[in-house]
C-alpha cells in the first residue's frame, strides 16, 4: 500500500542517513541528497540527487525536481548534519570560529528549515505528510564530545519540530524529532573514545547501530504513529534519561 509513497532523506549516502534510506526503501521510493555522490551506493528504490541543503536555491531545485517527477513528497527526513571535532576531542567554545559556527548551523539547522519551507506547501496540498527531524541526545543534556555549535543546531531541530507541529494544524501532517545517542558511524569513529566507553557509560552497554535509528524513523513514517505529533523520541540505550 505504501510502495507508491515518496520519501526525501537528506544526507543519506553514509552513516545513519544511509540506513534510514535502506529501511525506508522497503516501503517508499527514496530520494536522497548530499553535496557529492562519493559515498552513494546504488540500491533498489533509492535515487541520488546532488543538493547542498545549506543553499536555499539548491533545496528549491531539488524539491521542484521531485514534485515534477513524482508528484508529491509523503515523507521528509532532515538528517544531513556535520559535527566538527578538535583532533577527535570536544571543540570548546573558544575554538569555534565564526565560520565553523555558521557551517554547522547552516547545514544542520538552516538546511532543515529550507527543506520544510519548500516541502510543507506540497504536503498541505495533499492533506498528508510526515516530517522527521534528526536531533541528538546532546541537545537533551549538553553532550560529551559535541561542541556548542552542534548542540545548538540540534536543539534548534526540536524547536523547529514543535513550532511546525503547531503550525501544520488541520493538514494531517505529523512532525516529530528523533534524538539518537551515540551511534556507530564514521562520525563517531573519528572521536577519541576509550574502547570500553559504551560499556561503562551506556546502560545497555553498547553503542547504538544506525539501523536502530532507521527503524524508529520508519515507525514515525508509518500509519501506526499517526497520533504522535510534536514529539522528540530518544533512542540512546538509556544514556540520557529525560
Amino acid at each position, binding site marked *: 500500500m505504501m510502495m507508491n509513497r515518496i520519501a526525501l532523506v537528506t544526507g543519506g549516502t553514509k552513516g545513519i542517513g544511509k540506513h534510514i534510506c535502506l529501511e525506508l526503501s522497503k516501503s517508499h521510493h527514496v530520494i536522497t541528497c548530499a553535496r557529492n555522490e562519493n559515498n552513494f551506493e546504488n540500491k533498489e528504490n533509492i535515487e541520488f540527487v546532488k543538493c547542498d541543503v545549506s543553499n536555499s536555491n539548491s533545496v528549491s531545485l531539488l524539491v521542484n525536481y521531485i514534485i515534477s517527477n513524482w508528484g508529491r513528497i509523503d515523507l521528509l527526513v532532515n538528517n544531513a548534519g556535520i559535527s566538527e571535532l578538535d583532533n577527535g576531542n570536544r571543540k570548546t567554545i573558544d575554538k569555534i570560529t565564526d565560520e565553523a559556527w555558521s557551517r554547522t548551523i547552516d547545514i544542520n539547522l538552516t538546511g532543515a528549515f529550507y527543506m520544510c519551507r519548500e516541502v510543507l506547501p506540497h504536503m498541505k496540498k495533499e492533506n498528508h505528510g510526515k516530517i522527521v527531524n534528526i536531533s541528538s541526545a546532546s541537545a537533551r543534556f549538553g553532550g560529551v564530545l559535541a561542541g556548542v555549535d552542534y548542540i545548538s543546531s540540534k536543539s534548534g531541530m526540536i524547536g523547529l519540530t514543535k513550532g511546525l507541529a503547531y503550525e501544520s494544524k488541520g493538514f494531517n501532517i505529523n512532525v516529530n524529532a528523533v534524538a539518537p545517542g551515540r551511534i556507530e558511524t564514521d562520525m563517531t569513529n573519528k572521536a577519541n573514545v576509550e574502547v570500553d566507553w559504551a560499556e561503562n557509560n551506556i546502560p545497555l552497554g553498547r553503542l547504538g547501530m544506525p539501523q536502530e535509528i532507521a527503524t524508529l524513523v520508519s*515507525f514515525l513514517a508509518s500509519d501506526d504513529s499517526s497520533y504522535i505529533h510534536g514529539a522528540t523520541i530518544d533512542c540512546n540505550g538509556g544514556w540520557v534519561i529525560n
Partner: protein
Amino acid sequence: MKNAIVTGAARGIGKSITEKLANDGFRVFAFCKNIDDLENRKNIEYIQCDVSQVASVEDAFDKFIKNSDKLDLLVNNAGIQQQVGETENLHFDEWDKLISVNLSSAFYMSKKVIPKMKKHGGGNIINICSIAATKGYPKGTAYSVSKSGMIGLTKSLALELADYNIRVNAILPGLTETDAMNDVPKSVIENIICQIPLNRIAKPVDIANAVSFLSSENASYITGELLNITGGR
C-alpha cells in the same frame, strides 16, 4: 512463541493493546479484575486479577506460571480515573485507592516478572502513564501523582535492568476515546480538541500501535524513554 502480560485488559486502551499484541503473535495473558464476560480466544487468555492487591497478583501469577515460565513483555496498563474535585476535598481513601490501583500495581507486577525476565536473558516492560504525569491535572491530583510515580518507576527500572537486557519505557497518552470518557460533557471534549494540532483525541489503537513498536526489535536501543502520544499538545 513470546508471552506477554497486559493488566487492565478488558476495556479501552488495555483491550486494544491485548488485541494488537495477539495479532503480532504474542500469547497474551490478559489480567482483568472481572473476567465473567470474557472468553479466551486465539492468543488471548484471561486471568482474574485485582492488581491493587498483592495477594491477588500472587494468585494470578501462579496461574500464569502454570502456562509458562518465560515472560517477554509486561504492559502495566491497569488504571482508574479520579473523581475530579478540589484537592482539599480529596478523601484519603480515594487518594490511597488511586495510588494503589494505578501505581503500586505496577510495582507488584514488575517485582513478580523481573526474576523471570532476568532468568531468560531479557524482556520488556511498558508502563502506560498519561500526559497528566508531566503536565499536571488540576483537580485530578491523585491521578496525576500516580502517573508521575510510574515515570519514576520507569526511569529507575530502565537503569537498574539494562544490564539484564530488559528495556523499560513509558507511554504518555493524551486524552483518549474510552468508556471512561462517557461522563465527560461533549462541550468539554470539543473545547479540548480545538487546542490539539491534529484536531482529534487519541484512539486506543494509537496507543496499542506504540506498544507494538516498543515491544519489537525495531526499538532495541530505546530504554528509559517517555513516549508522548498527544496529537501535538
